[in-house]
C-alpha cells in the first residue's frame, strides 16, 4: 500500500507515493537524495536529523513522510543561497538575496570552528537557524538551551556557541 504525498522541499515541489511507515528522514535521504540530513539515533535524542518544517526545527527521524505532506521543508542543502539542490526556500540565507552566499549560521560554524567530524552539523545549524528566527540576540544560556536537543560529541559545544553568536551579530548587522 502506498500513499500520495505532496510537499515542498528546499523550494521545489515533490509528489511521491510512499509507504505509510516510511520515515521522513528516509524519504529525504533515500527518495529525494538529500543525504545532508543525518541519522544518529532514530529516537529524537541526538538531533542530527533536524530539518525546518514550516520554518520550525523538527527531528525528521521520528516523523513519517505522510505527516509532512503539505509542508514546506528546508534541509541543510537548501540553506545556502546557491545550493546546487535548492533555491528560493523562503528561509533565505540571512542576506536577503539569493546571491549564492552561505547562510550566516553556516558562515559562523566555519569561522568559529563549530564543527569537527561534521555529522551533527547540519542538524545543529538548522536548530540554530530556528533559534535566531525566534530570538535575534540570544545570550549564552539561551543558545545552550536552544541547542540542548542536538548532541555533538566532538566540539564540546563552545565553538558552536561562538558560531551562533557570530551569526546573530552578522544577521542583525545586515538587517540594519
Amino acid at each position: 500500500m502506498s500513499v500520495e504525498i505532496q510537499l515542498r522541499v528546499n523550494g521545489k515541489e515533490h509528489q511521491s507515493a510512499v509507504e505509510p511507515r516510511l520515515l521522513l528522514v528516509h524519504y529525504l535521504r533515500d527518495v529525494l537524495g538529500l543525504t545532508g540530513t543525518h541519522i544518529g539515533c532514530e529516537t529524537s535524542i541526538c538531533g542530527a536529523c533536524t530539518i525546518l518544517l514550516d520554518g520550525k526545527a523538527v527531528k525528521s527521524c521520528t516523523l513519517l513522510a505522510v505527516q509532512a505532506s503539505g509542508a514546506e521543508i528546508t534541509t541543510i542543502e537548501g540553506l545556502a543561497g546557491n545550493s546546487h539542490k535548492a533555491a528560493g526556500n523562503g528561509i533565505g540565507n540571512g542576506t536577503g538575496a539569493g546571491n549564492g552566499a552561505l547562510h550566516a549560521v553556516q558562515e559562523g560554524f566555519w569561522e568559529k570552528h563549530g564543527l569537527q567530524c561534521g555529522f551533527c552539523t547540519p542538524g545543529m545549524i538548522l536548530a540554530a537557524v530556528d533559534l535566531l528566527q525566534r530570538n535575534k540576540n540570544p545570550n549564552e544560556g539561551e543558545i545552550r538551551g536552544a541547542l540542548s536537543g542536538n548532541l555533538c560529541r566532538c566540539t564540546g559545544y563552545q565553538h558552536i556557541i561562538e558560531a551562533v553568536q557570530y551569526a546573530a551579530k552578522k544577521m542583525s548587522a545586515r538587517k540594519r
Partner: protein
Amino acid sequence: MTTRFIGKPLKRKEDPRLIQGISHYVDDLNLAGMHYAAFLRSPYAHANIRSVDLTKARHASGVVLALSGADIDGAVQPVPCAAQIPDMKSGARPVLARDRVLFVGEAVAVVVATDRYAARDALDLIEVDYEPLTPIVNPEKAIAKGAAPLHPGQKDNIAYKWELEGGDLKAAFKSADKVIKQRIVNQRLIPVPIEPRGVLADYQPGEGQLTVWSATQIPHLLRTQIASMLNFPETLVHVVAPEVGGGFGSKLNVYPEEALVAYLAIQLGKPVKWTESRRENFQCTIHGRDQIDDIEVAIKKDGTILGLRCHVIADLGAYYQLLTPLIPTLTGLMMTGCYKIPAARMEITGVFTNKMSTDAYRGAGRPEATYLIERALDLVAAELKKDPIEVRRKNFPQPKDFPYATPTGLIYDSGDYLKSLDLAIKVADYKKLRQEQAKLRKAGRYMGIGVSTYVEICGMGPSSAMPAGGWESATVRVEPTGRVSVMTGSSPHGQGQETTFAQMGADILGIDPSQVQVIHGDTSIVPYGIGTFGSRATAVGGTAVYKSLHKVKEKLARIAAHVLGSDPERMVFADGTISAKESPKKSVPFGQAVSAAYVAKTLPAEMEPGLEATTFFEPSNFTYPFGTHICVVEIDAETGDVKLVRYVAVDDCGNVINPLLVEGQVQGGIVQSVGQALLEEAVYDEQGQLITGELMDYALPRATDMCWIETERTVTPTPVNPMGVKGVGEAGTIGATPALAGAVADALAPFGVRHVDMPFKREKIWQLMRKNGRRVQ
C-alpha cells in the same frame, strides 16, 4: 622557511562541504542495484544456540539471502586481535555466533534484502532456539572460585595476567611514614560517535575487485584484515574511509560486519550496505574503560611519594576486539603520572564477562592512569591536610630532569609541569577561589575545587612498542599544474588534517594552502598507512608529510638552481617563486620549476623526472603532552546536583600548527570527560541486559551541561620529531576527569568524604551528604 601559515588559526578546508551537507558518509553512498543487510542479535547475554531457522525469512518479500553462523562456517574468519600478551587465553569473536552467544547484541544471523525496511522485517521471521545460561556480569564474581568459564575448554575467566614493576618497591613501602589505600572504579563507557558505523561493499566479479567503504579510522589495516578474514587477495581489496562522523577509538577496530558485508557482496555479486542503528552501536561497538583499581601509596609525612602499587581488574567483556587486552597495560605504563615516584608496581587481571568487549576509547588506558594517580595525589593531600597543589609541586620532576625515565620503563621526552601549573593557578586565581570556598562553606554552600596535573603518552609510537607498526606514511606529489597532492596514511575523521597538512605544504613550498590538497582514507590512492588514533596524526603522520614535502622541495631547489645557475642550498621558496638567496631577482616561478620536472628536457644531469616523494616515518619515542586543569563545582545540598562553575585548562602539546583546531580538540576532550564524571555509565543488569542501550538512557553531555571553558597553552616542544609537535587529540579527556573528581570530593570534604566513584549522579551525591536520611554536618 618563513611560517606564514603554520601556527595560524586558519579556517578549515574541510568545512564548506560539511556545513552544506554535501559531503558523503557511508550511509550517504548509494550504488545501482544496492541491497541492504540487517543483523539478528542475541537478546541473551549467555545462551547456547540449539537451532536457527531461517526458512520463513528466506521466503519473505524482498529477501535475497539469509545466513546463520553455520552457513558461513570456515568462510569468514573471526575478528582479529593484534595484542599479544604472554599466556593470554584465546577469546576470538566469531563474526556470527554458531553454538553459543556470550553477550547481548552478538550477531546470530544476517539477512539481505532489496530495501532496508524489508531486511529489518525479515529479522522478525527468524526463529532461534536458545538455551539460556547463567550470565556472569560482575568481573569480581567472574574470577571468584567456582565461577563457570565462559569460553569452553578454559579453566576460568581470567583472560591474562600482566605485571610491571620498577624501582625498589619493598624499600619504598618499608620506609614510608604512611600507606594510603583506596579502591577506584573507572566505570564502563560507550564511545557514541554521532555517526554510527556503516559498511558498503561492492564486488566486480570480472575484475575480481572488492571495494569496501567503511566508517573506519584505519582503512589500510582494515583492508589487510578483510583480506585475511575472507582469504581474499589483498591486492584486489580496496577500502575507502569516506567522511567519518567521529570515532573516538570505536572505529579503530575490525568488526564482524565489515568482513560479513564484504562476504555478502561477493556471494551476491551485488553491492550490499549495512548501517548500524544506535541500539546496535550501544550493544556491539566497543566500550571503553571498565577498571577496578586498588591502589596503595607509600608516602613521607612531607608529602613525598615513595611508591605506588596498583592491582587492576580489567573487564574485557566476552571477546577480544582488535586491541582489547592491550588497553589496560597502557594504564600500567602511565601509572606514575607526572611525578617522580621512584618505585611502582601494577598487576592487571584481564577478565572475561558476558558483555561487549572493551577497547580503545579516547585516551585508551591513559585516562584510567591519570585518574588513579591524580586521585592518589588528592588522597595524600587530604591525609596530610595539605593543599593538593602543594603535594603536586613537591613531586614534580624539574625541567632539567628531562628526558625523564619512569620506573615503568618510559622516557618522557620534555616537560615543564610547574610552568603549566603556575599558569593555571594564575588564570583561575586559585587563592581567591579558596577564599571564596571558605566563605561559601560558612554560608552552608558546597563549592569544590579540583586540580589535575597530567602527563599523557601519545604520538603512537615507535613500532617496537606497538602491536603492529607505529610508523606512518605520506606521499607528496607536485602535479604538473603545480598543485600539490598530499597523500597521508593518517585517516582523519574530524581532526582537520586536510587543513593542517595544507598549512605545512604551503609554508614549506612557499605557496598558498589552497594549492595543497590532502587526500586520505583511500587505500588505492594513499600509500599503506596505519591510521588515526593515539593522538598520532600530527606527530607521526604529520612528520611523514613534513619529510616528503622537504624531499620534493630539495628536488625543486636543484631544478631551480640548475635553471638559475645557482646553488640549490641557496634557494628560497616564497610567494609561488623559487629565488636565489643572494639575488632575489634571480627567480623561477614555482610552476615553471615543477613543469621542468615533468617535461624533463632541462633537468640536471642524472636527475630522475617527476616530482613525488614518499616517507615512512618511524618515531624514536612517544611524545608526552601535559598540562594542568582546574575545575570548580558547586553541589546543591538539597538535590545533590553537581554544577560546573568554572573550568580552566592549560595544555602543552608542544608546537602547534593550527591553534584553532588545538582549541577544538581540547574543549571536545574535556567535555567527554565531563560526560564520564557527571553523566555516563554503561549499565548491565544481573542478566547481562544493557540497561543503558539507547541515547534515551545513556546521558551524553549536552550544551546545557557545560560552563565556559577557559583555555591557555604553554609550549614545550618535543625533540622526538622535527616540528616539535606532540599531539592533542586525547589530552582533554585524559586530563579532565581527575579535576572534576577532585572538585566533587573537595566540595564534599565537610561531609567527611575523600573519594567518590564516577559518575557523580545526584542520588549518589545526595546520599553522601546524609546519614539515616538526615543531612550530616
